[in-house]
C-alpha cells in the first residue's frame, strides 16, 4: 500500500508539469514512466512502457484552450498499474503491457475529465478572489498559485489511487487463470503499437520536401543495425 501511495503521489507531482507548472517535459511518458519505474523497482519496464506510450501520444497536440485527451495522465496511470501487476504476475508481463496500454487510452478520457474539474474549481476560486478585490482587500497571488497547485496534486492523486485499486482488484481476479501463451499477443502488440504510433507521428512531418531527410534517417538507422549485427 505504501508503494502505491508513493507512486500515485509522484505521478500526481509529475502531472503538474503537464500544464500547471514548469512544462519542462517530465510529465511526458518518455520521462514519467522511467521515473516511476525507478521508484517502483522496475526501471526496465518503465523505459519500455515510456517508449510505447510516448509513441502513441506524440502526435496529439494541445491547441489553444482545447481540452484534449490527457495522454500524460493516462500514461502515468498505466505505468502505476503495470508496476503493480507485473510484480504479482511476472509470467504475464507482455500481456500486462498490452492491457495497460488499453487502460492508458481509457485513462486519458478520465484525465480530460479530471483536468476539466480542476479548471472549474479554479474558476470558482477566481470568483472568490474577485469578490475579495471588490471589497478592497488585497490578495496574495503566491498563496493563490500554491493553493491551486496543491488542489491539482490532491485531485490527481486521489483519481490515480481509485483507478489503480479498482483495476488491480478486478484484473487480480482474472489473471491467475490466464495461460502464459497469452504473452504472444503482447509481443505482437508492441510491434503494432509502434507501427500505429509511427504512422500517427509521420503525419506531423509529411511532404515531398522531407523525403531526403527520411532517407538519411533510414540509411543511418540501417547502418547502425548492420554494424550491431556484424559486431
Amino acid at each position, binding site marked *: 500500500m505504501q508503494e502505491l501511495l508513493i507512486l500515485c503521489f509522484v505521478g500526481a507531482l509529475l502531472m503538474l508539469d503537464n*500544464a500547471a507548472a514548469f512544462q519542462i517535459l517530465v510529465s511526458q511518458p*518518455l520521462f514519467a514512466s522511467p521515473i516511476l519505474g525507478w521508484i517502483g523497482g522496475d526501471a526496465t519496464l518503465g*523505459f519500455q512502457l515510456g517508449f510505447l506510450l510516448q509513441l502513441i501520444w506524440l502526435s496529439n497536440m494541445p491547441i489553444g484552450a482545447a481540452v484534449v485527451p490527457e495522454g500524460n495522465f493516462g500514461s502515468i496511470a498505466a505505468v502505476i498499474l503495470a508496476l503493480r501487476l507485473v510484480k504479482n504476475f511476472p509470467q504475464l508481463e507482455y500481456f500486462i503491457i498490452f492491457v495497460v496500454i488499453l487502460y492508458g487510452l481509457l485513462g486519458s478520457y478520465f484525465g480530460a475529465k479530471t483536468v476539466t474539474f480542476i479548471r472549474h474549481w479554479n474558476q470558482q476560486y477566481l470568483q472568490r478572489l474577485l469578490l475579495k478585490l471588490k471589497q478592497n482587500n488585497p490578495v496574495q497571488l503566491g498563496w493563490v498559485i500554491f493553493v491551486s497547485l496543491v488542489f491539482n496534486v490532491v485531485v490527481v492523486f486521489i483519481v490515480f489511487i481509485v483507478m489503480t485499486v479498482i483495476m488491480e482488484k478486478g484484473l487480480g481476479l482474472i489473471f491467475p487463470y490466464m495461460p502464459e501463451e497469452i504473452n504472444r*499477443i503482447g*509481443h505482437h502488440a508492441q510491434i*503494432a503499437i509502434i507501427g*500505429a504510433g509511427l504512422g500517427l507521428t509521420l503525419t506531423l*512531418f509529411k511532404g515531398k520536401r522531407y523525403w531526403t531527410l527520411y532517407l538519411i534517417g533510414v540509411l543511418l538507422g540501417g547502418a547502425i543495425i548492420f554494424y550491431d549485427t556484424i559486431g
Partner: protein
Amino acid sequence: MTQSDKLEKLSLRDVWAVLWRSFFVQAAWNFKSMISVGFCYALSPIAKKVCKNKEEYIDFLKRHLGFFNAHPYFASYAIGAIARLEQERHLNNKANDENIEKFKNALIGPLGAVGDQCCWAVIRPASLIFGLTGLAFTDNLIWKTGVLLLTLILYNIPHIYIRVQGILDGYRSGFDVYKKIRIDNYQKMIVLFKTIAIIGLGMLVVWNLDQAIRLDWKAILLFTVTMFGAFLMRSKKRMFYTPVLLSMVLAIIVGVI
C-alpha cells in the same frame, strides 16, 4: 530628457523574479479568465515596484485578472511588454488602462499561434523523437538515462530561451513587441528541430522493421499495415483512437492465429 529615460531598467533580480513566476503561468488556469491569474502573478514583482499603495495594487489586480490567454512560453513576451507599459502608465500616462487592455487582447492570437506552431508542433515532438530514437538504439539503462537527460537539455534550451528572451524583448519593445512575435523569427530553430525529428523518425521505422523481422513474417505485415493504416486515418480523417485500437485488435488476431 525623454520620457523613456525615466523608465527604471529591469534588474537581474526583477528578471529572475518574473521568470520564476512565469513557470506557473497556467497554475490557476480556468475557463473564465484562462491564464490571467498566473499572468498577474508573473507581473506581481513589477506591480509591487510601481504601485505606490494598496489601492493601486488592488486596481492593478482588478485590471489584469479579467481575461488573458497565450501559449505558456510565449506569454513571456506579453509579461515583459505589460511590465514596461505598467511602468509607463505610472510614470507619465503614456500608456493608459484602455490601450493596455486593447494591446493585451491583440496579443492573444499571435502569441497562441506562434507558440503552438513553434513549440507544440515542432520543438516538443522533435525532442521526444530524439529521445525515442536514443532509447531504441541503446541497450543498457545508464545509456538510456543519459539519452533522457540529453533530451531534456535539447528541449529546455529553446524553452528557457523563449521565456527569457520574451521578457527582455517585451520589456524593450513595449507596444512594438508584436514585431518580435513572428514565426519567421524562429525559422532557424524550427528547421533544425524538424531535421532532428525527421531523421529520427526514419531511424525508428528501420529499427521497428528490424524488430518485426526478428519476430516473424506476420509481425512484418502487422507493422506495415498498422503504420500505413494509422498514417492514412490520421491524415484523411484526423482520427486518433481508432488507429490505435485497430492496431491492438490486429495484434490480438495475429497473436492468436
